[in-house]
């Protein structure tokens, strides 16, 4: 087992932490300790029974092989009540013990402490948004160490599931309900590395890429990060929004909207602005058969192309483009006015970015606040 353990742990490369075993990743939360202890005990019981059964099988098969020139032996017992009762009752006691300890620890998992630091989590196809008490938001999860953290989670479309293997926690996000998850980690995440956060409930095309990192920071560093994070958009001047904030915000759109003209789950942003503003590239159609120009323009439903984009971000089902399903979730409450401005600016200047959303020109220096 040690050899296997070495093989597999070395192959899980790039992880600066110690403590990975053959079966489990390192323990990075308070809940991991008991969960792993339980796992270890169950494993021991499994090894015991499995090895016992296999050895017994081998002995029985070898010893009672049929001999060609010997008549059938018929002296085997037909039943044995005490023996059979024993192997019905003994496993019963074992599993009741296992149940009890698993239950006790599960109650702990289900009961977030009162003084927990609460982070609001919204999941949608196929990304996460973490919102902190001071209004800051982030795509990766940042948590303070040394105190319980409670995730208050909801989904805005289908089922998702928040799973952080290193913390041994997992909970479904159900549309129309809130669900909670809590943990406490005391280990600061090593520099340049992050814990995985997976979506564990199948949710379609981008399911396997709906994963993010978790960074645990000591309280002072966390506070600094949080302040900077809450202000990053506000500190950017309007005219610089599209190339400073645009690419960062586009990261949440790129799963569905390409920049190189490829048709994705949603329309590509290449040439989008020209299409909606009636410029070069011509008109487009909505699902209901009407053309863009019959809906966008003075006196029509959308006074300006900007109004249309804004409406599409906040209420995507209102006018779906022909050839696409009504698949986009609403970003209401996730993007403020300045964020929407940044996205619209990004669309207007889409030629200034490469197909991955990287700004092609040189970014002028002097961002006032560091953006991690």
């Amino acid at each position, binding site marked *: 087992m040690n050899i296997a353990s070495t093989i597999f742990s070395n192959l899980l490369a790039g992880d600066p932490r110690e403590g990975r075993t053959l079966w489990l990743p390192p323990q990075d939360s308070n809940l991991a300790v008991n969960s792993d202890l339980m796992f270890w005990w169950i494993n021991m019981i499994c090894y015991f029974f499995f090895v016992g059964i296999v050895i017994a099988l081998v002995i029985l098969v070898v010893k009672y092989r049929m001999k060609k020139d010997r008549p059938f032996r018929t002296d085997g017992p037909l039943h044995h009540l005490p023996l059979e009762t024993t192997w019905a009752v003994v496993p019963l006691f074992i599993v009741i013990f296992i149940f009890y300890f698993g239950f006790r620890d599960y109650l702990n998992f289900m009961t977030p402490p009162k003084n927990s630091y609460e982070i609001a989590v919204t999941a949608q196809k196929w990304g996460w948004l973490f919102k902190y008490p001071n209004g800051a938001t982030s795509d990766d999860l940042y948590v303070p160490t040394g105190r319980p953290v409670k995730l208050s989670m909801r989904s805005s479309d289908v089922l998702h599931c928040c799973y952080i293997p290193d913390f*041994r926690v997992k909970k479904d996000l159900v549309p129309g309900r809130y669900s909670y998850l809590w943990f406490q980690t005391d280990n600061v995440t090593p520099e340049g590395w992050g814990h995985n956060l997976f979506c564990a409930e199948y949710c379609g095309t981008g399911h396997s890429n709906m994963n993010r990192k978790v960074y645990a920071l000591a309280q002072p560093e966390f506070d600094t990060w949080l302040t900077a994070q809450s202000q990053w958009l506000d500190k950017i001047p309007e005219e610089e929004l599209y190339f400073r904030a645009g690419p960062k915000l586009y990261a949440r759109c790129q799963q569905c909207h390409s920049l190189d003209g490829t048709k994705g789950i949603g329309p590509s942003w290449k040439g989008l602005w020209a299409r909606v503003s009636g410029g070069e590239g011509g008109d487009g159609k909505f699902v209901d058969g009407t053309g863009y120009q019959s809906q966008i323009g003075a006196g029509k439903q959308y006074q300006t192309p900007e109004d249309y984009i804004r409406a599409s971000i906040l209420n995507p089902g209102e006018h779906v483009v022909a050839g696409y399903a009504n698949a986009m979730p609403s970003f209401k409450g996730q993007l403020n006015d300045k964020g929407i401005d940044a996205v619209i600016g990004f669309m207007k200047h889409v030629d200034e970015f490469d197909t991955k959303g990287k700004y092609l020109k040189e970014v002028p220096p002097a961002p006032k606040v560091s953006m991690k």
Partner: protein
Amino acid sequence: MTTINISQPLDTAARPDNYITHTRGFMSWALTLDHKRIGVMYLVSVLSSFFVGGVFAMLVRTELLTPGQTIPGVTADVYNHFFTLHGAIMVFLVIIPSIPAALGNFVMPIMLGAKDVAFPRLNLFSYYLWIFGALFTVSSLLLGGFDTGWTFYTPYSTTTPAGGVIPALTGVFILGFSSIFTGLNFIVTVHKLRPPGMTWFRMPLFLWAIYATAIIQVLATPVLGITLLLLIVERAFNIGIFDPSMGGDPVLFQHFFWFYSHPAVYIMILPAMGIISELISVHAHRHIFGYRFIALSSIAIAIFSFLVWGHHMFISGQSPLLNTLFSLISFSVAIPSAVKVFNWMSTLYKGNIVLNTPMLYALAFLVLFTIGGLTGIHLATLNTDVHLHDTYFVVAHFHYVMMGSALIGMIGGLHHWWPKITGRMYNENLGRIGCIIVFIGFNVTFFTQFFLGSQGMPRRYYDYQPEYQIYHVISTIGSYIMASGFFLTAYYLLASLFGGARAPANPWGGRSLEWQCASPPPFDNFATQPRVGDCYDFSAIRWDDKEQGYVVDPALDPTTNPRLAAKNSH
């Protein structure tokens, strides 16, 4: 006992007329009411579906060789269709009907000494429902496919743009009725067609298992039917039942779905357990140990199966109280399962074991079912399940139970009854080699996935973190080994049809009634109703060189020798 007079029972002489040659032509099969022909048609259909489901499994495993795209053209969406079809085909078209509808149909009436099942027309109707259900399910491929996973979880399944969801749901709905009618037919058959002398506790254990399965089929499948109908209604007419944006409740769907689909796990495993009882006892030539405990544990499992569905939902937002109760009840399934395993092992004690292909499959079952059952403890325990739920640990666990146990049991049974069904013997050495290759390949594929899951890899992932790759590579190599084992098996079984030795009536030394008629059985199974004794009493069985099979020695047979009957009764 003066002279030992070895004579054959009445019906074992191979007759020129058997169920295969009795009538000829396509229509004589398409409209047959003969349970044996219907069983064979099921067998061919199920094995073809197994091939199709297996192709999708190989595509899934190959795609997972590297993170991101491996096979050109297989995008995340295509992959999602692959694993959905693999799951749906294997569950609804292969494992659920495999043992009861295919092998059960063929063997059960003969085991009862009957000429057919209780309702032969209903039996044929079930088969055609299966065909229609399969056509609907597969036709969904042409109509845009479905990418919901075999579980159809809402609201994804009601909102996905994939066009084939409704045809697939309709297909599974129809398959459900096929299953219900088969179950109903078998319940009545066991109740009404047992021969004189065959009391409940004298039935072969395979029949107990089929009977327990039939009860679950009849009681649980309607719930699936109603659920799928509600899903169709929601998807087609936007009536909010499960989708919260229309006032529905997605967790309700999970309750409905697992209320069927957990018992369905036992629809899959119970008949396999029944087969194992037959295989171990016949190929160890030894009276089954603890008959009553094994028989009653089948019924216990059938009852418990209805009370544990919530263990699929420990982290889905179900209340902690329910989770606690479901965890506790789930553990109770361990008891009858443990009883069965220990009783099978005790059957080997002081036996006369022959390590031929069916016996190897039975031993493989014991090992794989032990692993599958024990790892169920990790998942039934509340706190460890939080970590393991929806990871590859679960994938590995249920493949050990559904494939390593249910399907291996089915293949063992296929080898056991192959001489009876086809009248031909397959190549025994190739059979053993095939079994060992499948066993090795299976463990390489799926044991690796336990590590993958406990290290945190979620299931249904098209793309994954590069650190998990080594496990995926090992697992995929295992799946190729396993596939080669299955191809070998298919080869020698098909070859036996053309060049195999003629099978004797009783090639293994079985004592239940199907071994008392010719191989293949005549059209009407038995000319006269056979006498029934203890179907696990092997004391009167003798090898006969002339017959190249086993025969019953009447002088030692309690059913024909009343003196012995009094002595042996228990």
